């Protein structure tokens, strides 16, 4: 349950913070760290919830945009970046970048509140 809450919070704050240009693109990193601190679970679970939350947030948004665009642009960009024209690879990398950042940020949050080693 805690895992799902953390994942959802990361996912939603990731989407919400992207909607305003007042917050830099990496603003979700701060949110993910807070979620990692507030929702208490194991280090592994904190990382995973952050990772998956943002993987789905960025990857999901990219997928939605790409679906509406019928992969017109992603196929071109996946040639500019040497990905063999694969839209799926581009979406995966998008999710991966967001996920890694949020995962490590959640870990920071977790360790900031952790009291002693188990």
């Amino acid at each position, binding site marked *: 349950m805690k895992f799902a809450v953390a994942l959802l919070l990361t996912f939603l704050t990731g989407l919400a913070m*992207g*909607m305003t*240009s007042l917050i830099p*693109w*990496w603003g979700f*990193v701060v949110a993910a*760290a807070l979620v990692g601190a507030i929702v208490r679970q194991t*280090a592994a679970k904190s990382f995973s919830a952050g990772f998956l939350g943002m993987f789905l947030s*960025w990857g999901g*948004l*990219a997928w939605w*945009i*790409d679906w*509406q*665009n*019928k992969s*017109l*642009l*992603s196929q*071109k*960009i996946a*040639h*500019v970046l040497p990905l063999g024209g694969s839209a799926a690879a581009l979406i995966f*990398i*998008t999710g991966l*970048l*967001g996920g*890694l*950042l949020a995962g*490590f*940020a959640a*870990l*920071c949050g977790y*360790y*900031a*509140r*952790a*009291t*002693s*080693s188990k």
Partner: protein
Amino acid sequence: MRLVPFLRSATVTTALVVVLNKPFGKVPALGKFFSPHIGFWQNAEPFDAVPSASLQFPSLKGATSVYFDERLVPHVFAQYDEDLYFVQGYLHAKFRLFQIDLQTRAAAGRASELAGPKAINFDKEQRRLGMVFAAENALREIEKDPLSRSLFDAYTSGVNAYIDQLTEAELPIEYKLMQATPERWSNLRTALLLKMMAKMLSSGTENDLAGTNAKSIFLPDQLKQLYPQVPDSLLPIVPSATAFARPGIVPVAPTSADSLYFSHRDTVEAHSHYQPDPDNGSNNWVVAGIKTKSGAPILANDPHLELSLPSIWYEMQLTTPTSNVYGVSLPGSPMVVIGFNDSIAWGVTNSQRDVKDYYEIRFKDESRKEYFYNGKWEPTRFRIEEIKVKDSTTVYDTVAYTVFGPVMFDQQFSNGYTKQMNLAVRWAAHDPSNEGMTFYKLNRARNYADYVEAIRTFQCPGQNFVFASKTGDIAIWQQGRFPARWPGQGLYVMPGWDSSYAWQGFIPQEENPHSLNPERGFLQSANQRAADSTYPYFIPGSYITARGVRIDKQLAGMNQITPQDMMALHQDYFNTSAEDLRPVLLKNIRIDQLTGNEKVYLDAFTNWDLLATPNSIGQTVFQCFWDSVQSAIWKDELTRTDPMAPWPTEQSTLELLVRDSALSFADDVRTPVIESLSDQITLAFKRACQVLDAEKAAGKLEWSKHMNPSVYHLLKDALPAFAHKGMKVGGYGNIVNAIKHSHGPSWRMIVHLSEKTEAWGVYPGGQSGNPGSRFYDDYISVWEKGTYHPLWLMRAEEKDDARIKGVIEFKKS
């Protein structure tokens, strides 16, 4: 807190943010670039999206509606002219921002700001040619006239209204890739855009530098043979037998011309690295009602330019209560450039006239502060050019200006040039002028008199304006401000210390070659010489003869013409040069010296239908053979200087061969034996066969595979993913359907001036400059097939038509 693991994960997180927030060379900051909220994903438009909005701006006077049809062509309905051009500027920016920003920066010699140090020499050349100087002179003219000023101001405000509200997410993708931002617009930038066109079309139509080297190799008679002024086969723009008035100005050759100019045999090492494509040109023609099935005139135009994505053209309709015009505009400048309205249609081709001369300047000393002119030391004026360079230090270049113009080449400018000769440029594009107003008036012209009044002030680049009206008039004017030259003036570098070599005046406008309603019922221009040898002025230029011959002959033989016939002529693949050349080449080739393999190619050439169709092998054989023949005949002579003397035009070589098969230039001067023409042609064929073998091995023997017709993105090889390569089309520069590798008919338009005007058009691109839009390249397949879109001159009451997919309303706030 568990400090150690916290610090460890914090370090990783921070490092990731920092690394992903930082660009590395050409790679943009990946975090930002991939962020689906602000990065490239935001440029991926929903497939079926058409703009729809209600916008308010304080500088507007009234309400304007923009109706986008299913091809994303905007039909703009404004109450006031100023609003009309504000909205045009807004739309150009909305759909073509990167294009207009890049093109005007390049025009101003500011490419290094985006491209880095590799563009410094390009920038220097632009500045030394006086591109900004020219634009500033034009700007003064634009802003002198209150009407013109208000229109250009409105256009500029419209571009800036779009730029100012642009969010980071909405930035065109090229900026995200290049980590750059757009710069605000100004009237100067509009002037620069027009000067970019002036350079494209009226710089490089001269051959003074290489020509000077030719003069050092060849005797005067030989020069006349190699570089003749009037080709034998010329079918001029103004029909032959047109009577010309006595010239209003008779320029006089300087008394020293023979000794100081014609027989002066110095060579020049300076040359320009960034010359426009010599095939920048076009076709246009018009047929009168007596030759058409409907009895109404039909006008056709296809400007041949570099094919790019986005295209140089943007299609639109511009309507106010007093004007209603449809056609293509040049993003970065207001008005419609080629099009039609309720009363008339017009089109343009390039005049190809030489309006640029070089003068040798003698500076007093290395300071370049004074130069010798008419027996005195005159002061130069310095212009300090500041070239900002991306990721590097700013470069300064001081350019000296003389009475002729900027000293383009001197000791300070080392683009592979060593010899001590300072060269100033006298270029018509430097002179104050306001070409934009010609289009303002043409957009509103109702008849022949209005058209003449509109084009009268058009100066540079000289254009052939073809015209047809609903009332049945057809006409053509070669319009521009052309120097009146004494015979031979400006073919070579001239002495810059004697004012008698300066331009003595201009050909009076009313004496420009023109024709109205000729008896034969048609007019055409295809970059050939405008008039035959009876025209009383010396008019050198880089003319192309073959297309005009073909179009003229075709039109002369046609009657009961329909718009479909005109479309077929646009797509015409007949190679008229090859028709003239084939008998001469075949007569001279020694078949007994050919191998079996070579004979197969010869058969393909002999039995070829003379059409440069996409799958033609005969055309590939002919072109490789003909290139090889020209090289065999000329290269030995022309490379006696470095840079080499100019190639005689294809037409000149063709006519020399047809006229005199014992051509004295055939011998390769570099070998001890004397080669005959047959020797050379046979050898040339054998060499061509080697090229053909390589092409065959690569599967590229078919013409379209050999030529690889392509439309590149503006950033060329930097972004191959945004290009369209390998289109299945034929043609060539000397063929009516003038498609070359990445060059050709950039807009095809046919207008039938019947009771209700019918028009068709297409360009190889799309209305949107965004590679993430389906409108980026949706016209290419239509263009490739040789088909057209019907052009819809919409009426305001048709706003609920099913073709309208989106509306933007502009209002005063």
